[in-house]
């Protein structure tokens, strides 16, 4: 029987990272989960407000959690690392600070209900690891990813701060374990938890181009063919900013950057047209064809 799971998409999963959402739906469907778009969701704010004297930046994420409660659900699934971080941190904050929760509820006085901290925020990687389990994932593989070496890049927002981390903060392994279940060879990328440059991609492309150069270069040194990520901003920075990295560092060698769900969908036997490779700046298809996976 199909389990409907409330899903918070966020702005980017409906635009530049549509391929992430589409492949995540395919992957979830294999295990009888259906991602059910949250009713009347709004932008989470993308970054968690770090100031202690202003709760306004926490209203947007909390309002989404209130929506989950409103439809009688206990948990909400996210794909985007930034949404995950913002929603889960805001949730943690209002659970810890009941006085601030009261202020936020007072700001949301037009809503039909109040929020109480009861919703759990989970990431797709947690669902795959803790509820579905890697042994079930292994059994569902139709086309093992033999022949490619994958480096997992976590970035910041799935892991920091510690109270919201989905895995060990300094030595996460969930994506490596997942890729091994799909039959791929994995390398332990030394810079897997180092920031990609994040929102500096707007005003300081040079910073992000240098970060991309460093991260991709380390992945090459370790023998990786592709990098995987779960964050649409990391994806944009590591993929599209390879152009800027090449301009600044003539020795730069490109590398395809994939969402982990794209490789899962590939391993589960979905055809090329379902995998959403068209928007990629560095096209992964030549490599996957060369290795006999497409």
């Amino acid at each position, binding site marked *: 029987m199909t389990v409907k799971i409330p899903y918070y998409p*966020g*702005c*980017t999963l409906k*635009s*530049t*990272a549509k391929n992430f959402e589409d492949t995540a739906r395919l992957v979830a469907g294999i295990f009888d989960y259906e991602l059910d778009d949250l009713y009347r969701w709004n*932008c989470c*704010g*993308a*970054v968690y*407000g*770090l*100031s*202690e*004297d202003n709760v306004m*930046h926490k209203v947007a994420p909390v309002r989404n959690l209130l929506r989950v409660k409103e439809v009688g659900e206990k948990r909400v699934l996210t794909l*985007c690392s*930034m949404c995950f971080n913002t929603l889960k941190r805001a949730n943690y904050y209002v659970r810890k600070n009941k006085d601030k929760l009261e202020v936020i509820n007072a700001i949301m006085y037009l809503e039909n209900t109040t929020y109480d901290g009861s919703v759990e925020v989970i990431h797709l990687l947690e669902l795959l690891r803790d509820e579905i389990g890697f042994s079930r994932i292994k059994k569902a593989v139709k086309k093992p990813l033999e022949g490619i070496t994958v480096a997992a890049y976590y970035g*910041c927002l799935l892991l*920091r*701060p*510690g109270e919201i981390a989905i895995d060990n*903060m300094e030595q996460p392994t969930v994506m490596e374990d997942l890729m091994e279940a799909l039959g791929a060879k994995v390398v332990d990328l030394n810079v897997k*938890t*180092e*920031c990609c*440059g*994040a*929102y*500096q*991609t*707007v*005003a*300081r492309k040079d*910073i992000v181009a240098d*970060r991309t150069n460093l991260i991709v270069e380390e992945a090459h040194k370790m023998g990786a063919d592709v990098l995987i990520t779960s964050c*649409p*901003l990391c994806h*944009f920075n590591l993929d*599209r900013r390879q152009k800027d990295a090449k301009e600044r560092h003539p020795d730069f060698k490109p590398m395809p950057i994939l969402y982990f769900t794209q490789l899962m969908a590939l391993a589960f036997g979905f055809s090329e047209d379902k995998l959403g490779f068209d928007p990629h700046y560095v096209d992964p298809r030549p490599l996957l064809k060369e290795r006999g996976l497409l």
Partner: protein
Amino acid sequence: MGVLKLTPEKFKEVDLINRISGQNVYDCYQCGRCTSGCPSADEMEIVPSQTMRFLQIGAVDKVVESNTPWVCLACLICSVRCPKGIDIAAIMEALRLVKLRRNYDFIHPNRIPEEDLEELPPIALVAAFRKMTP
């Protein structure tokens, strides 16, 4: 480099940074772990551990007027590794906010090239505007 003139007013500014960030800059004992892990330290005029020291001695203007808070990535490596549990990223946010709350725009939509606006993912724009505009 001029001479730092420290007055009681300077320390009121430090209190403001403490209040906005919810942190206590005097907790820092200068171990340097924040700077050693910071992916943006190379870009900073004043690295994170120096920022903490300048704040302790009341030189708030010096760090507020440096490029440091504006090249911070808010990646939280400094915060999670600080042995004193100081959320240094929150202090960087406070340093941005003292300017932003005076209606300062570090970035402006009109100054972003149109081709960038077309290709940047929404989260990049939302995040940048949240961190760098009032």
